[in-house]
């Protein structure tokens, strides 16, 4: 992870710091490990469409990537501000239907329609966000669920415009592609969208704006007292999150080609986003992606094993309950904590004896009685700070 080494470098300027060197080495190891994981991840994504044995596995891969996109865009709101929206499926559906309707009625090129639909979602989100963000906690969740339910009702009832329950057929952007090639192209398109989202999340999480959002998550009143424009920050985060979700939905519409209000404006879809993000860890850049891979694979297996029964609901419910009860921070922090237990105890207070400290301070020209000044304070890792 970045920025850890820079903090350390400014903190310990003194000479002769063997223990700190060890900590730095382990941190560098971790950096190398995460860079390696990133390279492996990119390689897996790049190779998967050609390694997939058949069109079914390939389409499952596309579905999982679309889940990863939605969960990551959900995390712009849920992860940064801690406002848990169970209704992000609304924006997914709006993006999907927006794309479909623009292509159908205006006849614009597919990807222009996709971008316009994203813009439309952003514009719709602003008033909804203003209303929803007037309240905190429970009421916010209620509003988010209500928004999906209302859209479901409207899109089902307004059949002449949306196709109603009989569905809306979205023309394919590449009509001359065969099915496996179609999946392959969209696999890369979703991967590109995901890469853009991850980069944006990473950039925001390091920015002043991102720090303000995290302050809201930790304590909104204190954040406000410190002069953070909480309302505007939350609104911007909400609109960004909704727009990206809408873009993922539009991409899904172009890929899948057939929309039904029941599936687009489904509470279940919104709950999958929350489950994936929480399971992976909402404070982590790759948390939603990891969660999406786990939940997506599990869902595909469930569909194969149990077919069309309601059993996947039971499984989803159980999994969500277990995550909430026992692992509310997610898998990535849990695994990191587990690994840290085996690794060198870099932040232990025992890493330097009093004699060593006195020697070091003497070398640095500090008087003997202030031995406690300037020691290598156990700097929290960036994961803990977030």
């Amino acid at each position, binding site marked *: 992870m970045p920025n850890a080494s820079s903090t350390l470098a400014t903190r310990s300027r003194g000479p002769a710091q063997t223990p700190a060197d060890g900590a730095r080495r382990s941190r560098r190891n971790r950096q190398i490990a995460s860079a390696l994981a990133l390279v492996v991840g990119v390689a897996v994504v790049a190779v998967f469409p050609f390694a997939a044995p058949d069109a079914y596995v390939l389409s499952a891969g596309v579905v999982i990537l679309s889940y990863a996109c939605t969960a990551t865009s959900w995390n712009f709101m849920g992860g940064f501000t801690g406002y848990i929206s169970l209704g992000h499926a609304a924006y997914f559906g709006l993006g999907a239907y927006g794309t479909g309707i623009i292509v159908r009625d205006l006849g614009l090129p597919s990807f222009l329609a996709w971008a316009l639909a994203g813009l439309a979602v952003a514009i719709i989100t602003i008033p909804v966000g203003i209303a929803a963000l007037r309240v905190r906690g*429970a009421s916010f969740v209620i509003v988010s669920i209500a928004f999906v339910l209302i859209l479901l009702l409207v899109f089902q009832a307004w059949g002449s415009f949306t196709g109603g329950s009989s569905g809306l057929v979205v023309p394919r952007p590449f009509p001359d592609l065969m099915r496996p090639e179609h999946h392959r192209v969209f696999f890369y398109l979703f991967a590109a969208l995901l890469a853009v989202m991850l980069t944006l999340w990473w950039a925001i999480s390091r920015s002043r704006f991102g720090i303000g959002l995290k302050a809201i998550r930790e304590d909104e009143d204190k954040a406000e007292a410190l002069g953070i424009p909480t309302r505007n920050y939350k609104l911007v985060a909400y609109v960004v999150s909704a727009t990206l979700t809408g873009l993922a939905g539009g991409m899904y519409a172009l890929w899948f080609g057939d929309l039904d209000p029941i599936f687009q404006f489904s509470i279940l879809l919104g709950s999958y986003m929350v489950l994936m993000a929480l399971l992976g860890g909402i404070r982590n850049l790759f948390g939603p992606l990891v969660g999406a891979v786990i939940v997506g694979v599990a869902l595909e297996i469930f569909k194969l094993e149990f077919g069309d029964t309601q059993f996947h609901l*039971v*499984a989803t419910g159980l999994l969500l*309950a277990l995550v909430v009860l026992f692992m509310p921070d997610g898998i990535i922090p849990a695994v990191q904590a587990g690994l840290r237990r085996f690794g060198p105890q870099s932040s232990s207070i025992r890493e330097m004896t009093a004699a060593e400290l006195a020697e070091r301070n003497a070398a640095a020209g500090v008087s003997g009685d202030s031995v406690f000044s300037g020691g290598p304070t156990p700097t929290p890792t960036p994961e803990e700070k977030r």
Partner: protein
Amino acid sequence: MTGSLLIQSLILGVLLGGLYALLAAGLTLYFGVMRVVMIAHSAFLILAAYLAWFASSTLGIDPLLTLVVTVPLFFGIGVLMQRLLIRRLRPATLTMMSVLLTFAIALFIEGLIGFVWGGTQRRIQLPYSSASIEIFGARIAVVKLIAFGLAALSLLVLYLLMKHTRFGQALRATIQHPEAAQLVGIRTDRVAGLGFGLGLATAALGGTALSLDATIYPSLHWHWIGPLMAIIVVGGLGSIPGAAIAALVLGVGQSLLQVPLGTTWAQTIFYVALFVTLMVRPQGFFGGRLAQRF
């Protein structure tokens, strides 16, 4: 709209509003005692309706008699849920995480109902199902009156319990100020558990009332939780009278709008009311201090 049609939809609205009021009272009770938004409330409602249907169709028992079993059962489930699940959540993130937890329970129950009884629509057939009486020229089905009577009676019992018993006093104290209630010797933890059970018992009552004249299917609970949550926000989170008043007003409104707009569009009144409330008065129209922050 003719006069008799107006009266008919007015009466139907009041009858529906009574049921909404009972269920919303339960929902706002959980919120009051534990600051928990109980998404699974309507899932338990549908579960009770399924149990009533099961008893009546396979065992031949009148659905109203199932109350003898379901009310204590649901009360016990509610107490256990608070003891074993809700209390395990961290206080700092309780509200958000409890939404997710109860959401998970709702999914679990919906899946279980579908798994056990299948996804097809069910309806109870009773000898008095088609009977109706005439009030002011409006024909009202007897089962709707029974359902309303059940809901009104339960609300009355809940009201008397809250106002005139020591337990009700302890419950209201816990809702108003948990720390102060603890200081005067109320075991708030225990009271919260019992309050949770009481809330779930209203779901058992409402579900049985609902099963008398509604077609039920596993995913029906989503159609109930939306309006119910809108009602408790409009009424002010945590305020039982507010919930009851909002339920009656919105129930009548829905019933009146059904005539010109149709069933689907009429349902949007709840969400319109929700958004208007948030824009105009986020703490709800009847809520006090409690609703401000949640």
